[in-house]
């Protein structure tokens, strides 16, 4: 029940560290089971490399159930590969054919420098959240949760924006390496909720400023981010963020 019958050629980006140049290296794999996940196929490759005395391929991964946002492979020109609405860890080999050549690269963006092989540094996302992606409420300051009724439709919309897993596929697929979908998802979640109102305009300005400082590109509305997002985060969030950002420039009395 373990082995399958798929034979594959992988072309994998190998790069020793952030300072050295990288290149695509070919690997042949045989007897791959269609029931394996894409990352399990990489486990097989790595086991073979270790047994041959070569260095295994470094890649980021953790939960392997599509929610932590850590896995990040650019597969045949698409972040998280060919299937819609799944992360790399939830992609299975039955989505490929026997004899395929599969090209696997890291996320590519100035703001996401390669650390090694397929792993990149996405700490820019944390810094954007730290610049304003929160409601300023200290522990112990909260009123009763039901003292603030929120229309279901609004709560559901906030939830949909909050479903972002912070993987960075939106940046990787964008020709401008823009982080607008990621930033706007957090801006929208909090802008849609009453708890987010007091800091609404301050927040959007801080987060956009930090986004620019990190070196992400601008948005030219190609929509690739929405098409490739494994969680289906909508482009509408970017429109909402833009509205809030421009409003902030008129409304806000605070300089951020």
């Amino acid at each position, binding site marked *: 029940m373990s082995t399958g019958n798929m034979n594959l050629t992988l072309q994998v980006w190998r790069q020793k560290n952030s300072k050295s140049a990288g290149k695509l290296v070919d690997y042949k794999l045989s007897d791959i089971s269609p029931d394996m996940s894409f990352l399990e196929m990489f486990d097989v490759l790595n086991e073979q490399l270790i047994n041959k005395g070569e*260095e295994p391929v470094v890649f980021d991964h*953790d939960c392997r*159930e599509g929610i932590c946002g850590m896995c990040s492979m650019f597969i045949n020109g698409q972040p998280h590969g060919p299937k819609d609405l799944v992360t790399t860890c939830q992609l299975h080999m039955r989505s490929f054919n026997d004899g395929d050549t599969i090209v696997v690269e890291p996320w590519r963006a100035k703001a996401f420098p390669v650390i090694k092989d397929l792993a990149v540094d996405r700490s820019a996302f944390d810094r954007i959240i730290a610049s304003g*992606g929160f409601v*300023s409420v200290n522990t112990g300051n*909260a009123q009763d949760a039901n003292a603030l009724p929120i229309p279901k439709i609004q709560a559901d919309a906030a939830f949909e924006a909050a479903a972002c897993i*912070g993987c960075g596929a939106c940046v990787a697929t964008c020709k401008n390496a823009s982080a607008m979908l990621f930033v706007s998802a957090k801006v929208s979640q909090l802008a849609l909720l009453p708890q987010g109102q007091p800091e609404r305009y301050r927040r959007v300005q801080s987060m956009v400023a930090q986004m620019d400082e990190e070196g992400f590109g601008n948005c030219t509305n190609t929509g690739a981010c929405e098409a490739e997002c494994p969680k289906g985060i909508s482009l509408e969030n970017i429109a909402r963020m833009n509205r809030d950002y421009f409003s902030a420039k008129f409304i806000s009395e605070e300089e951020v």
Partner: protein
Amino acid sequence: MSKLNSNIPAGELTQKWTKYKSSVPLVNPANKRSLEVIVVGSGLAGASAAATLAEMGYKVKCFCFQDSPRRAHSIAAQGGINAAKNYQNDGDSTYRLFYDTIKGGDYRAREANVHRLAEVSANIIDQCVAQGVPLAREYGGLLDNRSFGGTQVQRTFYAAGQTGQQLLLGAYSALERQVGMGKVQMYTRHEMLDVVVIDGKARGIIARNLITGELERHFGHAVVLGTGGYGNVFYLSTNAMGSNVTAAWKVHKKGAFFANPCYTQIHPTCIPVSGDHQSKLTLMSESLRNDGRIWVPKKKDDTRKASDIPEDERDYYLERRYPAFGNLVPRDVASRAAKERCDAGYGVGASKLAVYLDFKANTERYGRIEASKAGNHNPDKETCMRLGTAVIKEKYGNLFDMYAQITGENPYETPMRIYPAVHYTMGGVWVDYDLMTTIPGLYCTGEANFSDHGANRLGASALMQGLADGYFVLPYTIGSYLSKEIATKPIPTDHPAFVEAENEVKATIDKFLSINGTKSVDHFHKRLGHIMWEKCGMARNKEGLTQAIQEIQDLRREFWADVKVPGSADEFNPELEKAHRVADFIELGELMCKDALNREESCGGHFREEHQTEEGEAKRDDENYAYVAAWEYKGVSEFELHKEELIYENIKVAQRNYK
């Protein structure tokens, strides 16, 4: 019982925490600014503790091995979080949540801790909503609740099937806010590899920068672990790939007792193993058991497709054995029943290690209701199935999609195949009422400690405990210790204790890299997992456990002689990280077997085959085993047992009955 003092405050149960809070010594704001706290782990317990401590004014350093604190495995929790809000007006109360948790834990948890947990549960929901966590709501705008196993009220708050994600992102945003204000220094891609103990007190950690490989020394007036559970000792579990016991095990080896290691929760509804390549298992939420009926064929080794097996040739074994609770028996009971059927030869699928979870009957029932709503009181079967499928899709669509993605089968057409899998560990580092370990100044929170779930955790209680510890318990109790530390100046990290701890870590790393054996780390991890699952899994017996201890000792020796760790110490080297973790899992595995061997009773997630009723149910021995088993590390393969007696003053201890 010499060294164990649980420090439970005196007084009546319902007043203990209130009194404690108003009498615990305080630290004034100026002193807080000069007190440094290290928090290891950034899941619900760690992130909430780090954020809250920083808000209070302490200087905080927070460490996680992932690339961002938002990735901690709390993120994967699906079902929900319990809280005694009584929003549904169904008679819920702090006492009932307390009672259900003690009973669900099979009377092996501390009353005072669990009552405190129930008391603060309501504050958690308030706090999370204030942060902007989008919990599910009703049309009236108020919060919605659902039911979970082991209770008769609706007290579970949720955000679709992503409750853990939303709660963690709330805690993460609170944490990042403090990072942005410069009050928390965040160390991502760092792994704690030892605790530094000076004059008997925890004073810092040794951490490895996973990118550069550099070993770093960090001082803290106190150290808090929120490092999660150790389910990956079984290799295959629903834990994340990186979830590990290393931080907890290192402190154990430096003097912190490890409690009830054998209490592991095997969740009944997971997607079965499909082959040797499998790296992890995926949970299908407990909520599916509301509408799914569990069955196997009545005939042994039946190879027919599920749809070809007629109704009267199916054995709905949970409904047969437990008519009162049926498919909704607690997790431990459901898991053992599935194993029993498969072991007896009635399993399904290629591996024969699976049972069916069948939604057909309820799909048809829902369809009939929908047809009736539309005025069709005599719908044909096809209409019922079509309408009912839409209802099922709305309730469980994301889970059905995930199942289809992983197995390649369509669960709307054929029954799901499920099998139990390791999911949560109730055991962990022993802590007192203050959440302090047996090393002064070292605290342990969330799944990493042993404290609140006894021998079996109820659904939707893990998120509650993680956030209770981090937001509302530890920030108070740590003041009791730190108030006595205000005169302690930061200890320079060139202190001999730091140097020695770092040298030990370095020696271990050098050892790993110098063995240059023939087998990968994963090879050993898989073999350990196999031993643990077969002999210390859902059912255990004396013979198997005795063999397992020997096999694990042999495996340990082989590991240290023949493991192959490629690469070097001064680079990003995931194989080296795994080597640390697996080395610790091997040692922990031995202790788990020893604990399971010592506990000559069955309770909750611990089932000893020698101790069962005539009907095959778990049989507790309250006379001899109503204690917490806290193990002290004495050297390789040597552990000394200390017992903390469990005293029930408010609850009448009874045998659980689900028939």
